[in-house]
């Protein structure tokens, strides 16, 4: 392989932020027509490196070459001019614009200064046809699914004739089927000679789709390997820097008394929908077991949790430790329940507060943290330092770091630290590992299992089939707001679970199984 053409070379890139070196002498070489994965834990510097390539950050050191010639990328316009396109982890779309408007934005076709969308529409339609990227050009972005939003982002790159495509954690928000489609599309692109940089920490996907992998750890480049010469275990060890347990290690559950009992629980429809968001759901969660609500995103899981925790109105009865809390306030329910929320930015954290203030978000009223209405700053600091140490929350400035400046994984760790340390009999964990890397997932899973073994009741909501199968003791499948089946993860298969999730199968006599 002496004469391999590198379309992009990033040589000795160093990028620093206050208190942290995000990239430390990182070198990455992308060949024409390959799918090159960039693997690393949260905060390893993957997104920073790609932002450097896309012109969002200027590196302190290092150079970028395209086709062997050095280039300067000062802003995304330069990147676009060089044929570099990027699909960001958090999409950069204008919600109230139509799909077509979003695609052509910044590269509009004009006639005498007036927009002429006809040609643009033709071009987009052709691209969408050719790659099987189905989108509704006239729908507003706010009305379409996350999967379609991503296809819009991809079409944006294609519309600009980009030949180097960067995908920043593209699968984090997709359903399993959508992931398969995306993989196929990426392979198609590569076949046509486009080069793809694929940021991920999901080993399955990388093994399935990438030709080569560059592994980053703590801002440094660990190495670049061919996927055919490696395996998942080796990659994860490279990424984390120590042998990692990929399977959840747990003993059989020993369910105790009933902690949570939900009966005829209904969350009314929102907006224009006719159907109840959650309809007549009943189940129990016992101490010492992990019960998982599985399902494809958007089948009422979010609404159910909001109703359960008191964030939204719901009817039906909720009993916590035998006490009826159906009409209790959020705070009242919080007495026996901790909640790792689905949306860590919306609900989980006050992003402009410091880490320490976020860690006492519910507990600041406790006598331990206040005296006569005055916050005991020393106690808060000491508590924060304890949690940071215990849960290994990494940040630039420790307890006084502003939450917004922390990496996603560490934000999640902070929330988990806060919620688990509240030590409540019921732990509601909604997608606790979303967007996290193997090391962090391993840690969070082991924490949840430990909580279970301490006799906590765990209600888990997850979209990841692997997580559902490996972590839970019982699985409840939610489809269109109803629980359509209860499964034993040891006695079922991913295929069967998938059928329930897709609504193709429903259990009869579910009530007999329940509480058994």
């Amino acid at each position, binding site marked *: 392989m002496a004469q391999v053409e590198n379309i992009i070379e990033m040589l000795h890139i160093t990028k*620093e932020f206050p208190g942290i070196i995000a990239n430390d002498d990182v070198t990455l070489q992308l060949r024409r027509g390959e799918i090159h994965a960039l693997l690393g834990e949260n905060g390893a510097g993957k997104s920073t490196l790609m932002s450097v390539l896309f012109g969002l950050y200027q590196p*302190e050191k290092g150079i970028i070459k395209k086709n062997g010639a050095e280039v300067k990328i000062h802003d995304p316009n330069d990147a676009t001019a060089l044929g570099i396109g990027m699909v960001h982890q958090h999409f950069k779309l204008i919600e109230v614009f139509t799909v077509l408007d979003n695609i052509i934005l910044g590269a509009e076709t004009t006639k005498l200064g007036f927009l002429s969308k006809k040609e643009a529409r033709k071009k987009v339609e052709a691209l969408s046809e050719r790659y099987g990227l189905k989108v509704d050009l006239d729908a507003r972005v706010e009305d379409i699914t996350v999967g379609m939003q991503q296809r819009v982002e991809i079409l944006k790159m294609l519309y600009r004739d980009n030949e180097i495509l960067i995908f920043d954690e593209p699968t984090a928000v997709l359903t399993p089927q959508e992931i398969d489609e995306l993989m196929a599309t990426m392979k198609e692109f590569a076949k046509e000679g486009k080069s793809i940089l694929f940021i991920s920490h999901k080993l399955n996907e990388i093994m399935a789709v990438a030709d080569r992998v560059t592994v980053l750890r703590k801002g440094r480049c660990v190495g670049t390997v061919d996927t055919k010469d490696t395996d998942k275990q080796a990659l994860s060890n490279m990424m984390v820097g120590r042998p990692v347990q990929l399977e959840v290690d747990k003993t059989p559950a020993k369910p105790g008394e009933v902690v949570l009992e939900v009966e005829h629980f209904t969350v009314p429809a929102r907006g224009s929908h006719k159907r109840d968001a959650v309809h007549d759901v009943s189940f129990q969660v016992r101490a010492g077991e992990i019960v998982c609500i599985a399902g494809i995103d958007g089948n009422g899981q979010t609404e159910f949790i909001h109703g359960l925790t008191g*964030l939204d109105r719901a009817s039906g009865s909720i009993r916590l430790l035998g006490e009826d809390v159906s009409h209790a306030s*959020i705070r009242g329910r919080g007495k026996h329940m901790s909640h790792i929320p689905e949306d860590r930015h919306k609900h989980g954290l006050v992003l402009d507060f410091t880490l320490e203030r976020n860690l006492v978000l519910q507990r*600041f009223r406790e006598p331990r943290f206040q005296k006569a209405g*005055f*916050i005991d700053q020393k106690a808060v600091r000491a508590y924060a330092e304890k949690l940071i140490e215990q849960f290994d929350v990494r940040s630039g400035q420790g307890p006084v770091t502003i939450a917004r400046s922390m990496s996603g994984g560490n934000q999640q760790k902070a929330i988990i630290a806060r919620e688990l340390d509240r030590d409540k009999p019921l732990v509601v964990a909604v997608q606790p590992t979303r967007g996290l890397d193997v090391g962090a997932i391993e840690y969070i899973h082991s924490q949840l299992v430990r909580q279970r073994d301490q006799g906590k009741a765990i209600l888990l909501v997850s979209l990841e089939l692997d997580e559902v199968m490996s972590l839970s003791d019982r699985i409840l499948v939610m489809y269109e707001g109803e629980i359509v089946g209860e499964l034993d993860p040891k006695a079922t298969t991913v295929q069967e679970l998938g059928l329930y999730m897709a609504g193709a199968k429903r259990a009869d006599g579910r009530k007999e199984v329940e509480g058994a």
Partner: protein
Amino acid sequence: MRDKAITLWNKEGTRSVVASLISILIGLLVGSILVLVMGLFTPSLGMRGAWDGIRLVFFGILSTGRDAAGELTFGFNGVNIGNMLFRAMPLILTGLSVAVAYQTGLFNIGAPGQYLMGTMATLVIALSIPAGSMPKLVIWLLAFFGGMLAGALWGCIPGLVKAFLNINEVLACIMTNWIAGNLVAAVFDGSRFRNMVETTKTGYIYKTTFGLTRVAAGTGLGGGDYTYVDGAGVATAKMGLDKLFPGSQINGGILIAILIAVLVYILMSKTTLGYQLKACGANRHAARYAGINDKRNIVLSMAIAGALAGTAAALYCLSGNTEYYWTSAYQTLPAVGFNGIPVALLAVCNPIAVIFTGCFMSMLNVVGLQMRNLTAYNEYIADVIIAVIVYFSAFSLVIKNILSGRKKRRSQASAPAAPPDPGPATAEKGGEGK
């Protein structure tokens, strides 16, 4: 680690102060250019007049008039400084009003209305209680807290509407402002609080130094048994400040305003209530998730903001040397309410900083007067300069970012960790690449 964090935190604060000072300086410089241009185009001023004007823009607070040769003289001027502090008193409080709401994520543009309601309550209470029926201090306290309470209640309205109907507080505030204006005019119109004793004045309400005094039956106002007698009423104690700044309008109210600023600072940054208010402001969803009652906090925040604006009015009315001109209440909203907004913004909504920015704004006011008295400029030029400075104060964040950018770059250049190879040259290039 902890010491390091504290130093960093301090730096952040220092940077804010420096940024605010720089934006004030830029504002003053741009104001000076205006003064210069105006001077050069006004025959009666010329270069000489412009130079006087520019010196007054910067040092007007210290001007002591003109000497025998007609040159401006500078030095300690107790009247100027006393008047500055006197005018700062309500500005600090309305500034606090805006700042508290802002820290809670609300924009309190309703301070003028709250101020008006405070004015009304204070005056009505102070002028309704017959002199001598209770100690003066009690009357003063009743009037003071009456004004505060009226402001708080008026502030509650936009808060309630926002919390329960999700109607934008700015909209509700603007409407309550005009309701207050007309309400106040309606209450005073035809009332006995209109100054009838000093016949040279029309359209004014009695100063609070006037006390409702019993006279022989049928000889009082309108044939009643009571009349108003100057000196029988109440006024804020001078607390010795008149000795410090003789000849000025100052009274103890400024000390009360500063004390309140300190209390607000403690409330917002040291108490659980302040924590809740700020959490609601920064992220209402997260606050709700954590079991904080967001609706209650929105109403409470607006009530506190209203109480502060009401207090501004109460202290101003109770000064004893101020008169309320009620006839225009329904046409013009009190500027001191709106001026709370720039006072708060220039202070980055820090309650302690509000004390200084409030003084700064009133200083410009005094400077305007000086310019009118000592030069051929009119005081409107001071308003122009205030406007320019407020405009530039909006840039204080930009300036802050520039400052931190500098600092970062410098620390990188001196960082020992930098490897010697092609390092420095490319680093600098990268830095300039922006």
